């Protein structure tokens, strides 16, 4: 297992100079690459190294860093190893290369990412809408979209929740405690 892992790392590093690796104790190897390298590295993994199975594509919104992270997880049925390929995409101008010619099913993932995060894939051919219909708000999976506020504004909810907050206020009122403002962020 360790041998296979080091071979993979070596091969990828010689082919893709921008790849940085991270090793895990179990059957997993991670690479981080620039987004431009993604199609090439995935092609290489699939055609040259036997990572035939695309397990997953995921996207994480790192709002604080103003970036999206896109992760491709591929699996080699022969070597029984998972390879994670991470890349970062600028949040302001999220454009990436389309990879659905490598795995057809990537098309579905990309449609979803386009809809949910607003990432544009150059050359992606798919209907505009995927899960949502007539959606007018921002891409909902972006972290700055507040689903609770949206739901409260859009949908009518049955009244009855008087005290969604806490018993803390009741006790404060009874004991006469005055909670300073700077401490309030620590109230549960």
């Amino acid at each position, binding site marked *: 297992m360790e041998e296979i892992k080091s071979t993979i790392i070596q091969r990828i590093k010689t082919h893709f100079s921008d790849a940085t690796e991270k090793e895990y104790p179990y059957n997993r190897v991670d690479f981080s690459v620039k987004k431009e390298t993604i199609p090439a590295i995935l092609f290489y993994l699939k055609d040259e190294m036997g990572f035939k199975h695309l397990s997953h594509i995921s996207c994480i919104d790192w709002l604080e860093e103003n970036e999206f992270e896109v992760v491709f997880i591929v699996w080699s049925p022969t070597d029984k190893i998972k390879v994670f390929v991470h890349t970062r995409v600028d949040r302001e101008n999220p454009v990436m290369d389309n990879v659905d010619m490598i795995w057809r099913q990537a098309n579905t993932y990309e449609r979803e990412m386009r809809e949910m995060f607003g990432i544009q894939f150059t050359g992606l051919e798919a209907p505009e809408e995927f899960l949502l219909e007539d959606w007018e708000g921002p891409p909902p999976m972006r972290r700055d979209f507040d689903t609770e506020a949206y739901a409260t504004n859009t949908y009518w909810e*049955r009244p*009855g*929740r*008087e*005290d*969604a907050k*806490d*018993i*803390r206020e*009741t*006790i*404060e009122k*009874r*004991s*006469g*405690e005055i*909670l*300073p403002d*700077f*401490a*309030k962020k*620590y*109230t*549960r």
Partner: protein
Amino acid sequence: MSFDLKGTLKPLTALKQFGKKPHTLVDVPSIPLEASDHYRGFHYNDLDECIGCGNCSTICQNQAIDMVPVDGIEGKKGDSGLRPRVDHGRCCWCGLCVEVCPTGSLSLTKDYLYVSDDPDTFLWTPGVDNPEGKERISFFSTEETSLNDFGRIPMPELEGMDRVKSFAEVVLGYNEVQARAEASRCISCGLCTEACPEHMHIPEYINAIARGNDADAVRIIYDNNPLPEMCGKVCTRRCEDVCAIAHRGDPIAIRWLKRYTTETVKNADMIKEVVNPDIQEPNGYKVGIIGAGPSGLTVAYYLALKGFDCTIYEAHAKAGGMTMYGIPKYRFPEESLDKQIEYIQKIGVKIHFNTKVGKDISFKEIYSKYDAVFIGVGFPKPWTLGIEGEDLKGSIQAVNFLYEINNGKTVDIGDKVIVIGGGNVAIDAARVSARLGADVTILYRRRVQDMPADWEEIEGAEDEGIHIIPQAIPVKFYPDKKGHVKAVEYLKADMVADEKGGRPKPVPVEGSNTIIEATAVLGAIGQQGDYSFLEEEFSEKVKIERGRFVVNEKQQSTLDKLFAGGDAANRSADVISAIADGYMAVKGIEDLLVKGN
């Protein structure tokens, strides 16, 4: 295409089922099927056991649980008086509320049938609206399955027999990892804040610790307690008595967590930097404070922050009052007190040491010189036992004994010490004596569980090899030839239930006299006030009842500009009450001088 005879006939074998008993439950729906023994159906809440901590409401990811007042349930300390109401139009029957309920009052029942044409009837209070659910509980949490963390992170301590060798601090304090872990146990309900006389913002600072933000924790603590390190070490921690987790486990170590936080700020300068208090411009008012004990220091600190000019008169050479002279150093080292006093002085509080009011300066002078006066003189005078031989040599008052020791002096107590009493002073005196190499016995007239001292202190004493003889009433001290105490005679007592419902009384058993040898006897049955410094013109006007100043809720005595607090005004006899008094007096003084009412 060939005809497949077998494949055509085989399905007809279904006919062999003909005449067999069907699987159908024909009684459903007229008689609903009984759910299984662990079914997660509707909620049931045991209203008496429930303390309204709201943890169920917090864990509910559907916001289905509301805490609402319920008829017939009054809130009290340790019970918010609110009970969970469940919106069954939100509930998903995951049962997490049951798993986190600290008392185990909330459970799920086997009932699952509710059908209605009115969507507003799905909002109801378990226990109130379904009292019959009690017999049908099926999904509940036990100590084993509960998601609350019931085990306290053990406090590192010196070993029992090692610690009697020196006056080194017994409790070593949590390190960062331990503190974070202990703070993480807290469910942040806030029930503790009501039990705390000072209403400290306990859930908030514990949360700050749990999130790794010690500086914020310190700032929150200093919001209404200027002596947190003192409290962190010697507080009677009534908060822990009402802790929600304590119902089925060890309470959160609130005191130790406070101690941990205060220890992260190493010196007075750092405290000032971290707390970064908002000191207001001087407003010209002058306040005189008598006694630099916890209450006096609190008044001085907060008034100084508000721009008052505060001066403290202290009879002894150091500030801290009983915490300095009455509490042994293995519990409360001098450095940590000094650090806090230094910080308070940095804020601008002036302290005149070795200035006894009534001797070095008259009360009248103080009263006329200042716009308001606060008395926090405490109870310096010990009660005496009133039995034969009490004035013998070797019979010492425990407070005096502790004072001498804390002052760095030596007291000859020999090797066999008897301590009389069951309060913290008694235990302190006993443990100090043990550190001086004596074999110590405590005589207490009630049972061990009746002792007013902290259980931790009692356990600590037992660990250090101190014998406790409960239900023992001393009747006589015997002298040796030199007039020094030699032995103590005591009677065994029976506990007789009080007819009025009070705590059981010890009644001596005739003829059960026992005599034990002693080289010294330390009496610790309580102290009283000493207000001899009040000149006649004041003592007439100021109302004093049962040895304490009569004060209103703002700690104002019967004289308008005279305020009192601490032991001299309240019956609690602990540090945190004194601080609370001081904090209230600050409001009173501010109202009187600035707001004019």
